């Protein structure tokens, strides 16, 4: 029995007379993007990717494979040394980072790099305020986002009085409150306990359900297999595999996966051992096992 959480849906359009809370999601395109850090480390090598509006994509790879670097190109924190990054056809280079924050919200892996306010509510208001949201709309967003991560009771607390995993949820909520059509999460489940992971999964599902594009950088294969329809595997700055979890965790992809020091999730391994085909999640494995048993009867 796993822990389930549901996330309340976003404030609806029209009823309060405010503008739509989430602009429609843009398409994202990486055109032969290469990036080298100032000290010469080549972090991305000729990466070409297209992510459609509303897709849920997981970017996986070992530390140093370029996945975080890729994410930072989406909101303009890094600019490619060659190639282009396009949002709805517009080159990201032509827009200020502060303006891009209206379109792409990036939740960092380490919440302590972001938290600065004395109260949770002030922390939550920071992002939306920077985007020009004020008054009742601001309050609505803050309380909605806090509710989405289960921290409503802590609105008046000091962020540093919360434990690490709840601070991480707080950082996620503060980006959620910005209601960006593209949501990028950097290692959202690292350091989280079971309840925290369940919250993150609910947030990802809800955001996807509203049509936002969700990108998660993760090395948690189970989280990836269960929550994302597309997995991009990176190794040494290149895209090594790109497809649905069924494809990426299928047995013929394992050599490529292992070359990047990743292991497929257990249900995929179990499914392969029994010749059940691609079963990246527990549910898929159980279903395939059921079918195989029914056939043999």
């Amino acid at each position: 029995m796993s822990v389930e959480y549901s996330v309340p849906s976003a404030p609806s359009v029209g009823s309060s007379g405010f503008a739509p809370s989430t602009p429609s999601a843009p398409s994202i395109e990486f055109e032969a993007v290469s990036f080298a850090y100032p000290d010469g480390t080549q972090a991305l090598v000729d990466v070409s990717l297209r992510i459609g509006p509303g897709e849920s994509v997981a970017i996986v790879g070992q530390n140093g494979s370029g996945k975080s670097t890729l994410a930072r190109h989406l909101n303009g924190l890094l600019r490619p040394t060659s190639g282009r990054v396009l949002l709805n056809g517009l080159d990201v280079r032509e827009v200020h980072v502060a303006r891009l924050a209206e379109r792409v919200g990036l939740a960092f892996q380490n919440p302590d790099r972001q938290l600065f306010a004395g109260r949770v509510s002030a922390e939550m208001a920071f992002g939306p305020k920077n985007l020009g949201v004020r008054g009742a709309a601001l309050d609505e967003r803050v309380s909605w986002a806090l509710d989405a991560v289960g921290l409503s009771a802590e609105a008046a607390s000091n962020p540093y009085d919360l434990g690490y995993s709840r601070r991480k949820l707080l950082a996620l909520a503060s980006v959620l409150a910005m209601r960006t059509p593209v949501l990028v999460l950097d290692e959202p489940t690292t350091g989280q306990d079971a309840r925290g992971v369940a919250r993150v999964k609910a947030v990802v599902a809800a955001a996807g359900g509203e049509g936002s594009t969700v990108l998660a950088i993760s090395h948690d294969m189970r989280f990836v297999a269960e929550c994302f329809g597309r997995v991009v595997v990176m190794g040494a700055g290149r895209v090594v595999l790109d497809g649905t979890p069924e494809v990426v965790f299928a047995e013929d992809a394992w050599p490529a996966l292992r070359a990047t020091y990743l292991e497929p999730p257990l249900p995929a391994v179990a499914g392969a051992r029994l010749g059940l085909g691609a079963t990246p999640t527990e549910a898929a494995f159980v279903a395939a096992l059921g079918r195989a048993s029914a056939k043999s009867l």
Partner: protein
Amino acid sequence: MAIELSAVRYRYAGASKAALGSVDLRVEPGRVLGIVGPNESGKSTLCLVAGGLAPRVIGGRLEGSVRIDGADTAAMRSHELAQRCGLLFQNAAAQLSGTTGTVFEEVAFGPCNLGLAVADVIERVWWALRTVGVEDLAPRHPARLSGGQAQLVALASVLALRPQYLILDEPTSELDPAGTALVADALARVARETGAGILLVEHKTDVLARIADEVVVLAEGSVALQGTAAAVLADPRLAELGVEPPARVRLEREVRASGLEWPAALAEAIE
């Protein structure tokens, strides 16, 4: 011969309720004791108390006794404690001294602090590096290591003091799967080859399934479950206590819950 916590209660300075409420635990030489529990269940506090750093360094009130091989930790001086019980935390970078230019000197930091003869220091450094499996990192600069490497160097640095016990608070939480495997294997090797007793706090129950002998589940500062690793990790009450069971246990449970048989062929194929 053990780290023994008896009727331990601990309250942080200025806190309204106790972080740990009546915990009894034993860590024995050569054995790995795993601690799991939801966040804020007292796992980190347990590490600090067992390692003698609470209340010594961070204040607060401790009731009950913490003994290492029979001696009360409260009566020991910090450097004596350091030689009996090594502590490692999540953030590897914060544990490196930040004053040395090579991993060799970093691992030598502890023995040098003790004023040992140079020959002894050298011997301990190589022994620690070899036991953890990172001899080839010896010439590297500590600030330029990957997360997994830094954590291994921190482990070697603590081992160089030859403690009888090791206490680790979520050492793999910031690491990727490859780094996690490195650290887990190193810990198992340390317990086996040096006879050190290890107390390991971990979220990743798969790691505990692989290397722990016993597991304790903490919830709200008290022991909720205790027993052999195999028994506790397969216990159906884990989920409601806020702990994710290992992948193998979960898969088996899902299969049985749908009325199917767990295929025998899998038993050998996946551990």
